[in-house]
């Protein structure tokens, strides 16, 4: 027989699945995170190069946005909106390509609106007001952190959902961009999910100023995408 604690865990799991779903309607399907250019330019050609490309993307996310996500979750738990604004600005200032900024801000704002509509928590309303008044950009990692914090879902789980989301959206785009099967993409996704725990432990100890990265080719692919005439995806 299920006790009260199990019931809480089960509904928490269902809520995480809902807000972490790659089909959650915040427009993630419109972005390929550079994969479109990578396929066009021959940097990604098969399942193994797709795995390596996706691994780079999730590693970069863990070393950058992932740290901000953890910090934002802690600020949200403390109800500190000023700190959330500061974190949001730090995320935005580190998005050095136009399309990466567009993606983060669009998905983050939609995610916040959806949270206001579905959950209606006071902190979500406050954050939504900040964005509307131009005090915050509304970047995605901050939005996800607030959403999870107001549902009392842990920062560890928020981090996992964030990392999973990066990989799932690239792999979803891969099915439309290149010759790769559902079998291959699911295998890649499963393999990358195994690294999330270690990446979380590292991000949980880092300061906001420690956000860093190194993926020059990814950034050049983003620049190529801005100049491309024919595009299926928004990045």
């Amino acid at each position, binding site marked *: 027989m299920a006790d009260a604690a199990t019931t809480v865990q089960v509904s928490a799991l269902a809520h995480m699945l809902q807000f972490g779903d790659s089909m959650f309607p915040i427009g993630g399907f419109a972005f390929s995170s550079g994969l479109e250019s990578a396929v066009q330019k021959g940097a990604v050609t098969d399942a193994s190069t797709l795995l*390596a490309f996706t691994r780079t993307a999730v590693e970069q996310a863990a070393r950058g946005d992932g740290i901000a996500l953890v910090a934002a979750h802690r600020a949200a738990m403390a109800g500190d909106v000023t700190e959330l604004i500061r974190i949001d600005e730090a995320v935005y200032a580190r998005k050095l390509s*136009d399309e990466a900024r567009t993606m983060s801000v669009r998905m983050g704002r939609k995610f916040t609106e959806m949270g206001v509509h579905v959950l209606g928590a006071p902190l979500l309303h406050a954050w939504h007001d900040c964005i509307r008044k131009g005090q915050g950009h509304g970047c995605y990692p901050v939005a996800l952190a607030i959403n999870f914090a107001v549902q009392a879902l842990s920062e560890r789980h928020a981090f996992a959902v964030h990392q999973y989301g990066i990989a799932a959206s690239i792999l979803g785009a891969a099915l439309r961009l290149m010759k790769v099967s559902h079998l291959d993409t699911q295998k890649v996704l499963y393999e990358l999910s195994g690294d999330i725990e270690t990446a979380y432990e590292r991000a949980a100890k*880092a300061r906001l100023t420690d956000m860093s990265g190194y993926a020059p*080719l990814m950034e050049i692919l983003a620049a190529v995408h801005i100049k491309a005439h024919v595009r299926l995806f928004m990045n």
Partner: protein
Amino acid sequence: MMVAGSLPWAAAEALGTSVPELAAYQDEPPQMKSGTIGKTGYLRLGFETRGSRTILATLERRVPYLAQRALYCDQEMPDLATVFLITTTGCLLQGDRMALDLQLGHGAQAHVTSQSATKIHGMDANYAVQTQTVTLAKDAYLEFVPEPIIPHRRARFVSNTQVCVAPSATLLLSEILQPGRKHHHPDECFGATVVSLSVAAVRPDGRTLFTEKLMIEPERFAMRQVGVMNAFDVFGNVILCTPKDKAERILERVEADVRMADGIAFGACRLPNDAGLIYKVLGHNTAQVKAKVREFWGIVRKEVTGADLPPPFLWR
């Protein structure tokens, strides 16, 4: 950031003890202690206009950093003050702390470069740190285009650059990073332990523009991975702070492409908060990357000042 009342290189010392990437290397070299005389270089260059010409109005220096005087050797911009940065030790060693402070007054125009590549030697204790502050007043124009950085195997190097740029000023800040002396030793290609390069820019009123922290730790994150370096060896990173209308004209003219077969990739993106552009290049060898950086620099100079680039130096 310079702390009031403290020595200029104190910022480099403080940075070295605070960043996590150097936490494991806080031991002192068995040779000269870190941050002692001869290991704390300092250079402060202040440029100002006198009539149509820019002069080097302030020069403070401390070994091993050295600058002599402004030269006016650019045929296309005869009023441009050109300064060569010199490191008398010829390289960076464990325990070195370097601080550079560049200031351009209202309308000043300068070109700052280094005499040769910055070699960072292998280390078995401690690390080398460099801090740079670059301040540009209204309508100032600075080309800061040093020769490449060559981190030897087991090098540990952290660089932090704080930029403060007026909305009407233009800063071209270029960095070329070699993988090491790749023909010298099999472990030399991406053999450095830590190379951490960060740039943060603000407006004079303190508004944040952008931050970039590039962290290279080849033992933790594979360099040959797809999206990172692939088969490329040399990386060029050019930050351009310039007003939005100029940035748009420049972006219009700059090409972007990835040619895996030719071993070259390049392209520019718009920086956040209308700060300007960032241009990145990957190549197999330094000459290719330098040529692409020069191409971008030529477009920037033309669009911002109307002048062309002088012909390249034969031996640089």
